[in-house]
């Protein structure tokens, strides 16, 4: 740092506009001090030509004695020495003196001025009272001298003569005259400036316009315009001065550019001379006169001109207090100069420019440091850092040039070069000769020895880095760091170099700049190799070997590095583990079969697609994938669980998140969002409640956001050591050759134990090197399951019909069980469903993929209890299918044999028939019990058969004759032929059943019925109970040679005998031949007992009367359901019938026909009346509907009867107050219907003719 005293004296400060003084020198000398002081005190407004803004300036002047030599000669353009104003001083007050000497002197002065065409003059007449007093009395008034002067010299310009009164006195008059004088002087000075500078500028422009002429010289013009700059500077118009230099700068630049474009100017030749001096900028002097002189002489080199120009600009900028512009311009200048020298093809020795730039940078920095304090400097690092970095750069290349960066030190050739370079620096400038830290000394020292160079270089580098870091230009800082690393590398210090390189690499990787990444990584590889960090080196080599930015040769080299290390077999104990991503990428994984779910022991193949990034094919001794095994308890049940997540069936695609070699931009793109759709369904009705999208890898995405850290790439620094876990299970492939590009490798996966197998890691072993993929993501797993053997029986066609041979299909899924030779299925026989033996029953064996593997004939052996089916040998997880014909016998009716025991001791389950809701057919569940060889337990299977028929029977009577009708309804979808219809009675041999059925074969279509009729004839007595069996043979209609199958239907008829005959007759009213509607007719009902009472009947419901005659009570009821008749009076009543054959009871009832026509007789019901005391004898059946019906009937009918005992007894129910249940069971009189056939109605469906009434115009009027 320079001390303040050293700041150069500013030359131009001394330069003031020249004002000459003629006349009385002693007078002037006496006034000089106050004049020089007072003149700059007040600013003046300077109006400018060419529309330039007016400026306030403080004027100063350099007063010199007038000499003729001072006046510029014709053609002299020097402005600095130009006298702007000429003053003539006089204090003459006496006309004589004036006339004798002063006027003459003035005339001479005026003539001289005029001869030089200078019009800027003023005459100052000083008046003092002293002079007045001391001298003789004034002859002329004192003003007359001034008037005289004015009239003599200032013929039109009266203002050219100024009076100064009593200048040395302190009076108001004196002050006023001073002010007037100063104002006048200033005005005149400005006028002179405007006029003279304007003229000068015009001349200058003219000169500039001539620049296309052949003889024009830039240097000359330079001097002229600089003169103007000087004047502005002198007037402290630094801005204007700077403009002059900038114009010169631009003009010169344009010429150089034109030269580049082929437009050569002659004068430019001098600037194309080889550079011999590269001593750098010199900014400590206001004007570098040496250089200025050389420019003036036209001998300056380009660097000289540029240096000079910049030093002037720098000076002015510092006057303007714009130091940061200096640094910026400096950088531009330095770049520009280097470019211009190149453009002008100036020959420069190697390193000379570097020296010049280096010195210049430091010089500028020193200059700036000289005029700013530390705080300012620190705050404006951003302006200076460029220069620091540039200087660093240049010093480094100088060091390289001079052999100072090599490990061995400079060679003699290097030394020679150094000497040459130093020679060009010349001697140190006198300004800095005492400074210890001058740029000159620094450069000289730096080039003097390796150590000094290192010291200086490091100093500069660190300064630049620190500044970059301070202003947040981290990338720039890293770039400096990288170049420092290169230096360390050259010095043979890889350890320090690596730190910087890693730092830089991190930034390049994180921002995805592939070329810098590759370059930096290559340098790191070099470091690591030198440092002997084998593992890191190999890792980096692997990265580089797969780096597409490198040439194939380079990649092969790095690949070879790995392979040759791998080939060494020195230390078996330690294998180098590297990340696999850099070596090969797992792109795809495919399962065969695609379900990725196999039964235990089956073959599962895993096909990996590895994209090998190496440039050459690599032989891998072993490729292994470690497997994590989970015992999956649910998995044993089979395939229902689809746990493997995959886009394509059985194929997993791996996205390449961070590829090291490929386009790095994709690496920096980071993890892609993994989105999944979620649907929330309401549990009750499965309706969609909400839908959303979730990001599944938030942890990855968010982490990057938070700290902006680079993606965890294995390629940046040494990767975290990935350990290969020695899991129990491995997929292994030995000796694989990986070609560059995609390789397909097939593993056979272990599938011994059922459970879930997850692929965790992948490891490729090449000799001593292992490439490990520490984590396979997305996770890949496959399932091994184990299945129990399963036997199912299902009908071949739906529905299974009972009574006919039906085919059922047996399916055996073997599961883990191997069916051996001799294994057989043991079916327990049931007589309700025999298995029909068939000669050729073939079994089909099919593989899990439903491919037919084999067919073989089954041997079926039936014994009394068991049917044994020998199975063909079948491998596990195959399906065995065969068909058997079974017949389900139709249960014939109500017979229920006792439970039997099956062969295996189980209680036989009776097939139970029930009606099925889906079909009108009655269903029978038929159970089968099968003993399987793989289990000690029997397998129970159920088959549902359907009975195709529904059978109904009915008993028909005609007086005493009895007929039995059977209706067979076909409820199935098939049609049948019914043959050999038979009805037999089992118990009574005397009974003869005569058939009315003529056809032997009957067609029974689907959903149709067939009715059959028999008459029962008997010899002695008709038995009250008949056990009948209906049997028929049937076969499906469309089968030709089918065997008829029997069908049985058992039923029982009770109380067959006819007890009473009821006969009704209707008599027309008296005097009428026919009944007429609306007239009451008589209905006579006669009830006749047909047979003698049997024993049972006597005991059951008879009552011995007092006279010993046995009677029974009957109840009759006349009811007309179709409202044809109106019963007048009693419609029902009680009849006491004697229990004797042919006993008859007649009833007279009045009825009235309501309509005309053939009306059917009203219905007459006869019911058994059971008195209350007889109730104990009968079986109490409180739920009998007969009772309920009859009671309600009683309620209705007995109301209007009034005289029956039942009413009294009913009344007693309440009086006794005993429990209802008991009362009902014991005391209630009841009605019981006769069974079908016990009462024969003679007049059933008889009709009577009713005539209409003669006068039947009846209008029905309803009035409400």
């Amino acid at each position, binding site marked *: 740092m320079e001390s303040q005293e050293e700041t150069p004296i500013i030359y131009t400060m001394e330069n003031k506009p020249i004002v000459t003084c003629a006349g009385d020198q002693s007078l002037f000398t006496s006034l000089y001090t106050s004049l020089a002081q007072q003149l700059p005190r007040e600013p003046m407004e300077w109006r400018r030509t060419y529309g330039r803004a007016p400026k306030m300036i403080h004027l100063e002047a350099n007063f010199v004695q007038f000499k003729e030599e001072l006046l510029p000669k014709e053609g002299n353009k020097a402005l600095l020495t130009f006298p702007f104003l000429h003053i003539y001083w006089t204090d003459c007050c006496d006309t004589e003196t004036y006339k004798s000497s002063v006027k003459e002197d003035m005339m001479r002065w005026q003539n001289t001025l005029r001869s030089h065409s200078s019009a800027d003059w003023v005459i100052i007449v000083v008046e003092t009272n002293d002079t007045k007093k001391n001298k003789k009395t004034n002859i002329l008034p004192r003003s007359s001298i001034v008037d005289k002067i004015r009239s003599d010299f200032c013929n039109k310009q009266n203002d050219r003569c100024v009076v100064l009164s009593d200048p040395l006195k302190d009076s108001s008059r004196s002050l006023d005259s001073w002010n007037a004088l100063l104002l006048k002087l200033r005005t005149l000075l400005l006028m002179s400036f405007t006029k003279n500078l304007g003229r000068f500028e015009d001349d200058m422009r003219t000169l500039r316009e001539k620049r296309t002429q052949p003889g024009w010289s830039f240097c000359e013009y330079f001097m002229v315009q600089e003169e103007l700059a000087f004047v502005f500077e002198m007037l402290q118009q630094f801005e204007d001065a700077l403009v002059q230099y900038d114009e010169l700068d631009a003009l010169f630049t344009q010429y150089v550019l034109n030269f580049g474009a082929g437009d050569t100017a002659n004068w430019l030749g001098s600037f194309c001379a080889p550079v011999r001096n590269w001593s750098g900028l010199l900014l400590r002097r206001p004007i570098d006169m040496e250089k200025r002189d050389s420019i003036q002489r036209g001998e300056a080199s380009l660097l000289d001109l540029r240096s000079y120009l910049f030093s002037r600009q720098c000076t002015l900028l510092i006057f303007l207090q714009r130091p940061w512009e200096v640094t910026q311009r400096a950088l531009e200048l330095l770049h520009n100069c280097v470019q211009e020298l190149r453009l002008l093809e100036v020959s420069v020795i190697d390193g000379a420019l570097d020296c010049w730039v280096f010195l210049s940078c430091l010089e500028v920095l020193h200059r700036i440091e000289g005029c700013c304090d530390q705080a300012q400097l620190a705050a404006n690092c951003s302006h200076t850092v460029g220069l620091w970095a540039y200087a660093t750069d240049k010093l480094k290349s100088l060091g390289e040039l001079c052999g100072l960066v090599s490990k061995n030190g400079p060679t003699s050739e290097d030394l020679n070069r150094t000497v040459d370079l130093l020679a060009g620096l010349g001697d140190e400038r006198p300004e800095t000769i005492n400074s210890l830290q001058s740029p000159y000394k620094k450069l000289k020292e730096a080039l003097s020895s390796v150590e000094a160079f290192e010291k200086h270089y490091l100093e500069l580098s660190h300064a630049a880095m620190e500044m970059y870091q301070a202003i947040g230009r981290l990338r720039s800082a890293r770039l400096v760091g990288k170049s420092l690393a290169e230096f360390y590398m050259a010095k043979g210090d890889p350890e320090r170099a690596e730190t910087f390189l890693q730092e830089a690499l991190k930034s390049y990787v994180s921002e995805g700049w592939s070329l810098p990444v590759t370059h930096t990584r290559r340098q790191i590889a070099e470091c690591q190799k030198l440092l002997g960090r084998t593992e890191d080196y190999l890792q980096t080599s692997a990265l580089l070997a797969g780096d597409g930015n490198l040439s194939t040769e380079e990649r092969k080299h790095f690949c070879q590095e790995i392979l040759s290390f791998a080939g060494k077999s020195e230390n078996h104990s330690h294998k180098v583990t590297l990340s696999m991503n850099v070596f090969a990428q797992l792109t795809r994984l495919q399962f065969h079969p695609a379900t990725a779910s196999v039964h235990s022991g089956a073959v599962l193949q895993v096909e990996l697609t590895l994209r090998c990034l190496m440039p050459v094919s690599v032989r891998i001794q072993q490729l292994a994938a470690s497997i994590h095994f989970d015992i999956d308890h649910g998995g044993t049940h089979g395939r229902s669980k689809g746990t493997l997540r995959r886009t394509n069936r059985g194929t997993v695609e791996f996205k390449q998140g961070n590829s090291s070699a490929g*386009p790095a931009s994709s690496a920096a793109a980071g993890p892609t969002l993994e989105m999944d759709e979620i649907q929330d369904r309401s549990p009750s009705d499965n309706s969609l409640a909400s839908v959303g999208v979730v990001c599944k890898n938030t942890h990855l995405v968010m982490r990057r956001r938070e700290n902006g850290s680079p993606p965890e790439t294995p390629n940046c620094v040494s990767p975290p050591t990935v350990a290969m876990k020695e899991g129990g299970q491995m997929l292994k492939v030995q000796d694989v050759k990986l070609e560059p590009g995609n390789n397909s490798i097939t593993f056979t996966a272990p599938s011994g134990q059922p459970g879930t197998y997850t692929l965790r890691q992948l490891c490729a072993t090449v000799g001593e090197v292992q490439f490990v993929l520490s984590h396979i993501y997305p996770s890949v797993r496959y399932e091994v399951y184990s299945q129990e053997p399963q036997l199912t029986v299902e009908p071949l066609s739906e529905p299974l019909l009972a009574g006919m041979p039906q085919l059922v299909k047996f399916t055996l899924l073997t599961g883990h069980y191997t069916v051996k030779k001799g294994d057989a299925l043991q079916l327990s026989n049931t007589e309700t469903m025999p298995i029909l033996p068939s000669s050729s029953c073939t079994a089909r064996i099919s593989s899990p993929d439903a491919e037919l593997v084999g067919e073989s004939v089954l041997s079926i052996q039936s014994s009394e209890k068991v049917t044994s089916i020998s199975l063909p040998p079948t491998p596990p997880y195959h399906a065995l299918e065969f068909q058997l014909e079974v017949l389900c016998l139709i249960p014939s009716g109500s017979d229920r044999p006792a439970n039997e025991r099956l062969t295996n001791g189980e209680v036989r389950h009776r097939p139970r028939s029930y009606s099925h809701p889906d079909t009108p057919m009655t269903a029978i569940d038929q159970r089968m019990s099968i003993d399987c060889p793989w289990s000690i337990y029997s397998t129970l299977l159920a088959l549902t058969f359907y009975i195709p028929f529904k059978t109904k029977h009915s008993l028909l009577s005609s007086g005493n004759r009895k007929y039995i009708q059977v209706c067979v309804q076909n409820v199935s979808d098939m049609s049948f032929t019914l043959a050999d219809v038979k009805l037999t009675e089992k118990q009574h041999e005397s009974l003869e059943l005569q058939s009315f059925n003529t056809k032997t074969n009957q067609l029974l279509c689907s959903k149709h019925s067939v009715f059959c009729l028999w008459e029962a004839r008997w010899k002695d007595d008709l038995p009250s109970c008949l056990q009948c069996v209906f049997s028929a043979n049937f076969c499906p209609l469309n089968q030709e040679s089918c065997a008829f199958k029997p069908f049985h239907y058992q039923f029982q008829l009770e109380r067959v005998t006819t007890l009473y005959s009821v006969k009704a007759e209707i008599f027309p009213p008296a005097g009428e031949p026919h009944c007429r509607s609306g007239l009451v007719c008589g209905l006579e009902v006669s009830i006749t007992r047909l047979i003698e009472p049997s024993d049972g009947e006597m005991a059951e419901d008879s009552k011995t009367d007092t006279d010993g005659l046995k009677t029974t009570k009957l109840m009759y009821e006349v009811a007309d359901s179709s409202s044809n008749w109106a019963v007048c009076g009693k419609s029902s009543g009680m009849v006491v019938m004697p229990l004797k054959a042919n006993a008859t009871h007649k009833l007279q009832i009045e009825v009235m026909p309501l309509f005309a026509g053939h009306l059917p007789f009203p219905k007459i019901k006869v019911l058994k009346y059971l008195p209350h005391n007889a109730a104990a004898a009968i079986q109490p059946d409180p739920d009998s509907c007969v009772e309920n019906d009859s009671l309600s009937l009683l309620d209705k009918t007995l109301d209007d009867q009034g005289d029956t005992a039942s009413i009294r007894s009913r009344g007693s129910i309440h009086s006794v107050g005993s429990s209802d249940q008991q009362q009902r069971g014991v005391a209630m009189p009841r009605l019981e219907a006769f069974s079908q056939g016990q009462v024969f109605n003679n007049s059933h469906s008889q009709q009577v003719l009713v005539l209409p009434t003669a006068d039947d115009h009846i209008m029905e009027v309803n009035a409400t």
Partner: protein
Amino acid sequence: MLPFTVYFSPDVFFPQNYPLYIRSVPSQNELKFHYTVHTSLDVVEEKVSAVGKSLADQRELYLGLLYPTEDYKVYGYVTNSKVKFVIVVDSSNTSLRDNEIRSMFRKLHNSFTDVMCNPFYNPGDPILSKAFNGIVSGMMVQTS
């Protein structure tokens, strides 16, 4: 001598400065040139952050000369979504004035907008668009 041209941009969503597109002619000095562009990001960021946030809307997209080096001139342009464009021109190429550079950037920006409008383009992926490439090539030929 041909100019070097580079376009580079960070993803809008990730504030990282990875290149979307880099092209350079001639290619032999590509490495140095990548380093230059990468370093220029410092200045781009400095310039962008120097502009007050409130003024960000009216911000001039063209950043002008980022910094000169001995060999190149580096110009910058930042879109409102902070996508950065950088053009590097050889220092010796004097035919390119500020205005030409500015219009080149504008052209690039338009073309880049077209690329982004392509529904098949995934923002953040390297730009492989032929149309964009064509525009860039056209400019490189024109300025050489």
